[in-house]
């Protein structure tokens, strides 16, 4: 009897726990995957842990990944510099985003990515938007830059 009780309780609680775990504290999932308003984002597109949120989704047949990392640090500026060392291109300063922020390329294996590294007070954030492609073009870079900047605005806004 006890076993049945715990099984039932577990069944009734588990969806709620999953949903709770899937809520990214710094960006709303619908915005992150650019889904139409009112549409729930499937749980398999979101992975959330203490300092990270990852979103995987398709748009027009292209596979995207949005990776959000937020870390509280002792020295925000110094920690930002460490993160910038991982850039695969020169950095460009962005004004009006957090206390300070930079944009750079962040290519990983078969992923073409752009990222914003910034901080709000002592919280450092990295917003990485990547697509699975070996191609590279000015248009793609611009598109990824715009997406990363918009997502960074959302994250920084929620960190203030």
């Amino acid at each position, binding site marked *: 009897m006890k076993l049945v009780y715990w099984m039932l309780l577990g069944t009734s609680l588990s969806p709620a726990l999953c949903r709770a775990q899937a809520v990214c504290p710094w960006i709303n999932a619908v*915005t992150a995957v650019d889904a139409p*308003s009112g549409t729930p984002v499937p749980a398999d597109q979101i992975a959330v842990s203490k300092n990270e949120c990852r979103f995987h989704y398709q748009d027009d047949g292209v596979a995207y990944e949005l990776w959000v990392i937020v870390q509280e640090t002792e020295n925000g500026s110094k920690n930002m510099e460490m993160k910038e060392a991982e850039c695969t291109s020169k950095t460009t300063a962005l004004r*009006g985003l957090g*206390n300070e922020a930079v944009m750079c390329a962040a290519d990983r294996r078969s992923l073409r990515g752009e990222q914003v590294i910034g901080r709000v*007070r002592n919280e450092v954030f990295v917003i990485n938007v990547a697509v699975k492609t070996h191609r590279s073009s000015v248009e793609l870079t611009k598109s990824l830059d715009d997406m990363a900047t918009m997502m960074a605005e959302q994250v920084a806004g*929620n960190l203030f």
Partner: protein
Amino acid sequence: MRWNRAWTILAEAAFATGLFALLLTPETSWSQNQQNKYQQDQYKESQEQLNEKKQSQDLQSQRQAYSEKIASTYNFRFGKEIPFDPSNAEVQGGGFIQPGAFPDATYCAHCHQEAYHQWRQALHSNSFREPFYRTSVNLLNNTEGIEFSRHCDSCHNPIGLLSGALTENSLVNRKFDDNGVTCMVCHSIQGLKSTKGNASYIMGVPSVMVDENGNRIPGEVPYSEILMHTDRHARAVMQPFYRTPQFCSACHKANLPEHLNDFKFISAFSAYDEWQNSKFSHQNPLTFYTGDFKTCQNCHMKRAPNALPDYGAKNGTFASHSWAAGNTGVPFYYGFDEQLEKTVKFLQAGDYLNVDIFGIKKANEDKVIGPLGSVIFRIDPNDILDVYVVIQNKNIGHSFIPEVRDLYQAWTEFIVKDAGGREIYHSGFLKPDGMLDARAHSFITRPVTKDGEFVDNHQVQTIHAAAYDNTIQSGRSTLVRYRFRVPADAKGFITITARVNYRHYRQSYINNVLGKDHPAYPVVEIASRSRAINIGDNQPAPPDPQDNPDWMRWNNLGIAYLDEIQYADAVSAFSQVVRLRPDYADAYTNIALTEIQWEKYGSARMNIDKALGMNPDNARALYYAALLERRASNIGAELADLQEVVQQYPQSRDARRELGIAYYRQGDYEHATQQFEALQDIDPDDLAAHYNLSILYHRMGRTKEAEEQQALFITEKINSDARVEALKYLRAHPEVSDESVPWHVHTDLPNPPHAAMSMGDGGNY
């Protein structure tokens, strides 16, 4: 564009009917070509109408489906019928609006390049995303719950509110966040609920066109359509009330309602009410000065030549969509140099404030030497001098500082230097860490919690009282006194400078938002005046171009004394105005109104008679005459005077209130009720109206209405613990407690002793 077979059949039927009708028309002289052309046009037009109708119905059903979906998970914390509470926002037809229903600003930019360019750097477009707002609203979200932020976001992020995004685990795509108050927010508002503020707007379905019957067509339409029917575009996006101050009041007036603070209604700010009471509204007979009629838009949306093409431009000028005002902080943060430059230029436009180093009072002497520049006097080494600086809110249509006066910072900087440039006394300096000298005279409000702690981070839901409020209302003046000793070795002259500085925001708030390692935010000098004073004899000197004439300098001093409850000094100052301007009726009225407050009715009567002797229809004098008639129990004269004032100024709150009281005292409840109802139309939160209407309705048997008014009076009257809470703060902060006293002196000298007790390191300045 999708075609629907059923609608096509209907269109064809309509075409056929039209054709049949055409055959019956008497205009048979048309050529066959003309007839064909007409038929084709008719067909095309009917097709377009049907398509528009179809699209409109599709959008309406989409909106309904969206609204229902959002409602299924929305937190209706404050009631199912009031989804946007604690704000007053309302949607025409109810429900939620999809964010995508608001055409994006870039859509408007196609034809309105200048508007878009200006708006992008303006506060309206950055009203939500900017960090000084986000820090405050995030704290509210994290401590109380996101549904409470509906109060703030109703004006800072209306699409967020109306789309139902302000609920836990929202399913709304927030791409619109960086557009704040976008074009189609303001240009979709179809009405105003009242002048209560807190987003008292009625949002229509966003439309950039109306159809031929005036029905709003939701969403975007092709630019070619707009250009073909610019009149229908204008009808969709412009309303006559957009040009009124009432429109601005929807968001530039705010209170803290009970649903927000779980306490009671607290009035927050009202630029609208301040304007309505100013000389610029022409609605208040009691202003100290008169001026040309000006609205909010006349100052903040001035027309200027447009640099970019814009179909909204008229004769090469465009009404500003930069809304330059006081906020230098946000453009500085974003690096919006153009907006920053416009804002600084606006603040320094010249005649908003007047700084007058009016006079000097020597220690142990009663007489104030002044107005400086017009009198002969002498000072000597070792003299202890009180310098009287009068700051006049001369041409601002609202208070200085307006609105969120706990966040902004304006203060007087006062510097005395000897002939060699050595500093003798300095008040209102910035410390190396950017914090303001705690003992500076500042024009701010200090809101406090129920525990008497300063609300440093703008958590408005915790505000219970104001420890003090040193803002200067429109048209009024304040007197700031500075005391210092002339050095024993001073030779030649000393230079005295008084300036009013402004910083957006208060340094401790910038630190809260960005931490302490941020760049220094701009400090703008709004107005200043310097005078060189000889050690020895001083002769009259010619005035500076910005100086007020002497009679006005005395008048401003009198106004400042009056507000400091220094009645004898006020009467003395106003008497100097009479001496210099015996033709100026208001000088006599000013003496009279001071004496009424001082309860010297006999003398007040003499002075008001002098004012009325110059002009028997002078509404300002008649108002005070009525108060004197009341005192003398001349009810008929009291009524006649007030009726005349109301006839001349039907929007005068004071006259309506007093006339209501006069009728009430006469037992004429019907007319008394009319006056208080009119007063409530002018200001829905007027306490006197609530109080008196609750009694009047009760006496007239209108019990339900009486109860409503009584409830409003109880919730809106000032918190009875406010003074206690304010004193808790002031007791713990002696370095600023003087600021709460109408009469105070700023000094580094050991007298008065408490002034030197603290250097103010414990405060948030």
